[in-house]
């Protein structure tokens, strides 16, 4: 055979457009193409929400924390609740991307990118709250051990300091994990983009070509990051729970707090994944990739973690009674029947009672039902933190020092801003990066193709 002239081949090898692109590339990348007015409106609303929260924060920085609803003895309020809430939301993403990866649960492939993105954005939201909470924003660096002329160091025996390390580690590792998974998909985007987009994707793809060497290193990296992230995610919410459990406040001082917080975080996080992914799937018509099977699997997780939460609520009450400590008993009695009874019953209904409906298969597989339930679960999880923090602090040992805390307008403004901040990141993510892990899905698609070819004997020619 005479080989064709080299220049002709070079042209052949690098066509201007790809004649037959893979279906999944087209489907998933079409999400990033074009901007609808609805998207623009949502982004505008999100930016508006962020703007008003920044204004409130500025005002609070100028006036001081007095504009928050703090009343002695409650000096941990909505900001700390938001911090715990958003950190918890992030945990589902790491569970899906790391733990289910180690368990080789292939169904995670369709949702892991969206969940990982959610993790990164949730942690970026949560990380703001300790700073907002300290009030004097310019002194946040006191949290970091650094050599200073006072030769003073931070207190390494304090759970609050452990939290600084845990949260920052979690943030960096989540971003690294997210980015490493994205590299092959950014390369796909690079090969199909033009103009300025192509330039940006080219830089971000870091010359990825899917060579044997690159895939081997990539697989190994993902495996190791998953192995590192798995204990990390368990440690992060445990450390957050120790912010409370290491104190002697009745209602906080419990050994069950670490597993209870981790399960609650995964529970709330999975609900948030569904709240985000259900509309995304519908709007961008991704039903072929994110199927009802994925949603059903997630709802099973939600049901399971809901049971753990229910068990933890029960165990808390049981131990409060069984310990014979009057302060614990009073604290828990007032939790259910005191001034904050409403938040406690919202928490119990949304987190334990309503999710039991998932036992019914017809409801578990109904997408609208799941969406409504997951919104309720998120409300319930926010109230769980409200109950834990506020009811415990407001009813400590000395009745003379009891108080009542009601969130102020400023705190609600920043709470709304945090949802807008999170949505802003997610909306931008939708338009710039693939929402589904294309390369991982392609692995399954090509596997099936190879299987079919093998079955029909096509490969024998």
């Amino acid at each position, binding site marked *: 055979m005479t080989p064709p002239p080299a220049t002709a081949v070079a042209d052949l090898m690098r*066509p201007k457009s790809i004649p037959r692109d893979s279906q999944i590339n087209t489907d998933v990348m079409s999400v990033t193409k074009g901007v609808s007015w609805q998207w623009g409106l949502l982004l505008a609303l999100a930016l508006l929400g962020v703007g008003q929260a920044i204004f409130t924060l500025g005002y609070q920085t100028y006036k001081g924390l007095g504009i928050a609803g703090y009343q002695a003895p409650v000096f941990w309020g909505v900001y700390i609740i938001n911090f715990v809430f958003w950190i918890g939301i992030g945990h589902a993403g790491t569970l899906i991307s790391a733990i289910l990866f180690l368990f080789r649960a292939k169904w995670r492939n369709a949702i892991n990118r969206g969940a990982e993105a959610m993790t990164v954005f949730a942690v970026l939201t949560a990380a703001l709250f300790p700073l907002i909470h300290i009030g004097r924003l310019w002194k946040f660096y006191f949290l970091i051990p650094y050599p200073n002329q006072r030769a003073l160091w931070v207190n390494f025996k304090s759970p609050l300091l452990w939290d600084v390390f845990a949260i920052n580690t979690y943030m960096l590792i989540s971003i690294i*994990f997210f980015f490493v998974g994205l590299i092959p998909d950014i390369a796909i985007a690079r*090969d199909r983009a033009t103009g300025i987009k192509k330039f940006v994707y080219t830089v971000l793809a870091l010359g990825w070509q*899917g060579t044997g060497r690159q*895939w081997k290193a990539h697989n*190994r990296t993902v495996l190791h990051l998953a192995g590192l992230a798995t204990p990390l995610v368990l440690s992060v919410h445990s450390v957050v729970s120790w912010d409370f459990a290491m104190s002697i406040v009745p209602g906080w001082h419990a050994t069950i707090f670490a597993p209870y917080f981790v399960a609650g975080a995964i529970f709330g996080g999975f609900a948030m994944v569904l709240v985000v992914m259900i509309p995304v799937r519908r709007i961008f018509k991704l039903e072929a990739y994110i199927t009802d099977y994925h949603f059903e699997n997630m709802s099973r997780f939600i049901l399971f973690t809901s049971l753990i939460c229910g068990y933890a609520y029960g165990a808390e009450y049981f131990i409060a009674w069984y310990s014979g400590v009057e302060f614990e008993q009073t604290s828990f009695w007032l939790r259910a029947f005191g001034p904050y009874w409403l938040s406690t019953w919202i928490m119990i209904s949304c987190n334990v009672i309503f999710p039991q409906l998932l036992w019914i298969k017809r409801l578990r597989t109904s997408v609208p039902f799941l969406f409504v339930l997951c919104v309720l679960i998120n409300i319930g999880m926010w109230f769980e933190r409200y109950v834990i923090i506020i009811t415990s602090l407001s009813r400590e040992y000395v009745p003379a020092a009891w108080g009542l805390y009601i969130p102020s307008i400023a705190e609600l403004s920043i709470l709304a801003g945090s949802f807008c901040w999170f949505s802003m990141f997610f909306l931008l993510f939708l338009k710039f990066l693939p929402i589904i892990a294309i390369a991982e899905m392609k*692995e399954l698609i*090509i596997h099936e193709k190879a299987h079919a070819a093998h079955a029909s004997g096509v490969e024998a020619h």
Partner: protein
Amino acid sequence: MPTLVSVFDLPDDAATAIRKLRGRGFEDIESYSPAPFEQIDEAMDPRPSKVRAFTLVGGLTGVFTGFLMQIWMSLEWPIKIAGKAYTSIPPYVIIGFELTILFGGILTLIGLLLVGRLYPRPLDAAYSPRFSAEEFGVVVKVGERDVAEVDGLLRSLSAKEVSLLDD
């Protein structure tokens, strides 16, 4: 040296081609794959990726940094806290652990970038966007007089296209 670019539909075929080419003594082979397939990576290089060494070094650096930092800092200005020893190891486990993960993760990323040669650079001449679609590429550098033979070999191994890239 002429470069032959062959295109395959199935990962197993690409892996077989790489192995056969190796068997014939061609060493300068490159593979392009749209998704991770072990058979191809194994055929290219059966040794485990060197990334694992980076994770180990990072993790060990992290655990030592974490503990030594805390011990040194608490001894540099000793303050009694809750009647505990100045350097009590149990509470230091938390930050020691977090830094193990942090350093391990960062070094793993650096390992990926170095081992996978990932930094902004021009793509190979043989690379084509079709390899980020659903096709597999096996690229081999051969001597002038081997072109026809290797071309025939690749086609017999169910390559759906073989073309020549001169550089």
